């Protein structure tokens, strides 16, 4: 009997070592943690329940029958983050380069199936050289199985990908279909084809970092939702994100005790909007001042800065925030910002997270670049996402809400539940200057008359009251009391129920 127990112990010890101490040291040498260390930091201490520790591959080609490491290059199981269940897989670069075999993929599929069945998020830690070439199509089939599960799980349980090493070729499409992708600066990259192939095909000289590093994907491509300095920080921030997310689409977003005053008055917000309507201000200040404890988890902070997306809590409960940012491009809507916000709104709606929209938008960005690249359809994504969302939607217009962009930004017409406006709001088809130029074209040569017309338009429309008279704004509120108003608004919407007509699925303009 003791021999049998001892064998378990020995086998576990061997599995723990993964690819062996030399490879572990090499991994550390690259500034990376091992697959196990990552799981350790991601989960509550001692909470990891491992599955398939002893799974090995079944390949017998190219001498693979002699190399059969326990676990087959991926560690899978479940554990808890602050006591809440999550499923996790962590690819082990020290074992056969973390390459994906049929069994490696099967292990991932197993926990994904369990995650969906039991309603818990899936967190994937990617650090893999790619398909296991020795296995040929078996490996590709494995990828396919994972992809299919990513699709099935989408909107059922949150899926988070942490890219902590290479992730290239077809492998990128699994993270691509998850809800959030986070990367580690300088030690991770993602691309469909690597620098060598790029060089052969297009003659472009590019490094892996330039082609698919964290900076590229957080600033240029928007493939990644955030980047962190190192593994430790990335894992800690992933835990912080999970604290905001519901476990699945059947449960409500989490609530936790909060140490903030629901009625907190922020008198400084009364002066947030500058006297000069063309002067920017930082919308993040408003977000920080209304959030519980000033805590804002920003998503895609480095991309399309003209719109802000992320999570806050009000009275301890998660709320998704979408906010125009006047500091960047005057907060205009364009292709990038519409895509960024649309995806965020749809995530919130899928997981019953109420949405707060903070509006200061001068309209859509004009120009051939925008039109040629399809701002019509991309802009429509955000409109569509808002219009189909059935979660509680509360909107605050702080300053400009012009034209079509006004309608898009969770207006009353897009089933906004509660729409507030600050006294500084200007809800109109366009700014007074532009409107005058169209309405009084014949007087354009006369600066005096034009000024008078502009003043007239401003007096008529550069305020929230025309919209309020029609009920398009539910109430005009004092900036300083915004937090209290929002807490009460969302509290009043806790019982909201709204159904969409039956359909197989919608046809959002992708």
């Amino acid at each position: 009997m003791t021999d049998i127990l001892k064998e378990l112990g020995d086998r576990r010890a061997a599995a723990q070592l993964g690819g062996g101490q030399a490879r572990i040291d090499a991994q550390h040498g690259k500034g990376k943690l091992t697959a196990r260390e990552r799981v350790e930091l991601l989960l509550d201490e001692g909470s990891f329940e491992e599955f398939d520790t002893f799974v090995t591959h079944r390949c017998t080609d190219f001498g693979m029958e002699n190399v059969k490491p326990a676990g087959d290059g991926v560690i899978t199981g479940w554990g808890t983050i602050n006591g809440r269940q999550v499923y996790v897989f962590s690819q082990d670069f020290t074992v056969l380069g973390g390459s994906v075999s049929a069994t490696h993929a099967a292990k991932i599929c197993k926990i994904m199936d369990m995650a969906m069945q039991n309603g818990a998020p899936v967190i994937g830690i990617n650090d893999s050289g790619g398909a296991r070439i020795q296995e040929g199509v078996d490996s590709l089939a494995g990828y396919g199985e994972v992809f299919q599960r990513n699709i099935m799980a989408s909107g059922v349980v949150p899926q988070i990908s942490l890219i902590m090493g290479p992730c290239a070729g077809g492998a990128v499409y699994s993270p691509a279909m998850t809800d959030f992708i986070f990367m580690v600066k300088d030690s991770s990259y993602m691309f469909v084809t690597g620098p060598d192939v790029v060089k052969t095909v297009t003659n472009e000289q590019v490094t892996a970092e330039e082609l698919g590093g964290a900076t590229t994907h957080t600033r240029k491509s928007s493939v990644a939702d955030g980047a962190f300095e190192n593994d430790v920080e990335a894992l800690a921030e992933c835990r912080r994100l999970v604290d905001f997310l519901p476990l699945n689409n059947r449960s409500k977003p989490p609530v936790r005790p909060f140490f903030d005053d629901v009625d907190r008055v922020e008198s400084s917000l009364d002066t947030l909007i500058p006297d000069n309507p063309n002067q920017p201000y930082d919308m993040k200040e408003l977000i920080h001042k209304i959030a519980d404890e000033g805590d804002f988890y920003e998503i895609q902070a480095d991309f399309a800065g003209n719109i802000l997306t992320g999570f806050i809590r009000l009275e301890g409960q998660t709320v998704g925030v979408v906010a125009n940012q006047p500091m960047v491009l005057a907060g205009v809507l364009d292709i990038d910002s519409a895509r960024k916000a649309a995806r965020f709104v749809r995530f919130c709606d899928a997981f019953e997270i109420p949405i707060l929209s903070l509006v200061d938008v001068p309209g859509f960005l004009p120009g051939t670049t925008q039109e040629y690249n399809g701002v019509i359809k991309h802009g429509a994504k955000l409109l569509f996402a808002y219009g189909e969302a059935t979660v509680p939607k509360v909107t605050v217009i702080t300053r400009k809400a012009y034209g079509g962009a006004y309608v898009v930004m969770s207006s009353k017409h897009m089933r906004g539940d509660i729409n507030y406006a600050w006294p500084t709001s200007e809800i109109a088809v366009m700014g007074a200057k532009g409107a005058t130029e169209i309405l009084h074209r014949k007087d354009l040569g006369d600066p005096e008359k034009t000024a008078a017309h502009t003043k007239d338009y401003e007096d008529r429309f550069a305020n929230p009251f025309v919209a309020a008279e029609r009920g398009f704004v539910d109430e005009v509120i004092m900036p300083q009391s915004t937090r209290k108003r929002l807490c009460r608004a969302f509290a009043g919407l806790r019982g909201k129920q709204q159904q969409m007509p039956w359909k197989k699925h919608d046809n959002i303009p992708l």
Partner: protein
Amino acid sequence: MFKKILIANRGEIACRVIKTARKMGIQTVAVYSDADRNALHVKMADEAVHIGPPPANQSYIVIDKIMQAIKDTGAEAVHPGYGFLSENPKFAEALEAAGVAFIGPPKGAIEDMGDKITSKKIAQDAGVSTVPGHMGLIEDAAEAIKISGEIGYPVMLKASAGGGGKGMRIAWTEEEVAEGFQASKNEAANSFGDDRMFIEKFVTQPRHIEIQVLCDSHGNGIYLGERECSIQRRNQKVIEEAPSPFLDEATRKAMGEQSVALAKAVGYASAGTVEFIVDGDRNFYFLEMNTRLQVEHPVTELITGVDLVEQMIRVANGEKLTLTQDDVTLTGWAMESRLYAEDPYRGFLPSIGRLTTYRPPAEVAAGPLVTNGKWQGDAPEGVHAVRNDTGVYDGGEISMYYDPMIAKLCTWAPTRAEAIEEMRVALDSFEVEGIGHNIPFLSAVYDHEKFTSGNMTTAFIEEEYPDGFDGVDLAAADITRVAAACAAMHRVAEIRRTRVTGRMGNHERKVGSDWVVTLQGGSHPVVIEADKTGATVAIGSTIHRVESDWTPGQPLARVTIDGAPMVMKVGKVSGGFRIRYRGADLKVHVRSSRQAELAQLMPEKLPPDTSRMLLCPMPGLIVKVDVEVGDEVQEGQALCTVEAMKMENILRAEKKAVVTKINAGAGDSLAVDDVIMEFE
């Protein structure tokens, strides 16, 4: 008494005057420019009159506009504050002509003291000690040596047209005078085309000490002790105190009496200040007289209990002083810190803009101890006062058009050491966000041994911070205190995280008690044990008792460690706390021992070498880029223009270099520290 006065000023001093006027039952009129439409002084005053565009020369110092405002509101008197029109004899004249009282000295006194040479002459005649020197021009080295002998060494040889140190030499011996005279003369001729020279005493170990005088229009005058203002940066006072740690009673009396004599000599009638330079042997020499209320007057008010603004108003109303010299007692010690909107880490560049957070420490009045402008006996032990004179508010703005002072923070306590300690705590609890400010620098000075010992000169900042200010490293004892506090705070934050809904019953996370705190480059293993009133934190072999009511999200943590209170500013950094305490700005991480062990494996990422980059100094829009890749630029050459706050700022090359990369173009909006271009 006047029924209504107008304050021809803005900012904190306008607010300060309004407070006293209100106390005296006098109505107040504020004036404001476009930039001050929402300013605090406008909100505080009973009435406010708009006087024009933001630049002071189109509003606050336009006499006609002020006169019109007086006429429109029927104000009977005007308090000019400091700066602006406060020492403008034409303004005093205009008021006199209009039959409006000037809450300040007579026009003649302003004129007499407004001229350097006249004022020195009058001072000499009134028996005031002046810097020995030869006013006339000096022909040759022989004459220079003769005069130097009369003055006494060391002496300073100065070019009449001099400036910027050119044509200036300090000589300690006859030989040095002989050599230096000719050299300075040549230098002056070359630099200024004017080789006239004069000589005066060179004051060693100079300290700036000034006497507050108060006179009425009936020939009475008293002095209210001194203020020491030696802590200056480029002739801008930064920290003032009263009394001076350097003066003895005899010197104080001599300076005070001479100051009153000078004031009387010019028929002074108001509050005024006589500035002296004092050398290491307590010889004092007259510098100038400021015929107005000084910025740093609160420290005098705190140690004398006299409301100087009230006295000024009463004197202007023709009343006699009710205080005699014998009534004036100096009780305790007062410190004043000038909070400036300037970034100490960037060479004290002005940092204007929105105060996203402005929360000063609570004011504690010394008032009850003072009755009828007099301290009633000695202040009891443990008593302190905090006073904050300010013209801004939470969400207000520091305008680029005016002095970037945010506030004057004063503390008072029975002794100098206690007043300094009060100031440290007050600075620790002063929340200013949204702009750069000098609180870290002030905190550093209050912890500087040379300052705490009182052994400073006007060269203090220049000598102690020759390369500017780059932050503070905490001493070991403070590190331990911060580590213990952070461990206790981390525990509170982590326990709350485990209380989220959706937990797996019976499988909750247990927050541990063995942690490693890392800060300022060191790691400190701690074991924490919490109980009902706080926690016991063991760091190494020492045990600390930590008590605090801090909860997550609070920007200030008030913590008692081993019975001693501390206040820290608490912010967030990824995975940890940002702690600001005593001028230090720290990232603090509290981790389990396993987390700490793994964190050790993380590569240290060195910040990029910014000396080869042009960083955007403020959030703004690139208007144009003046150079191209490959250009060789010279020191001082314009590189690009950034528009911020509607102002165009030209960024220039700091040294000769070649442009290797340009990351931004016209129209790009950049955040602070974004890299605009790189050099080789």
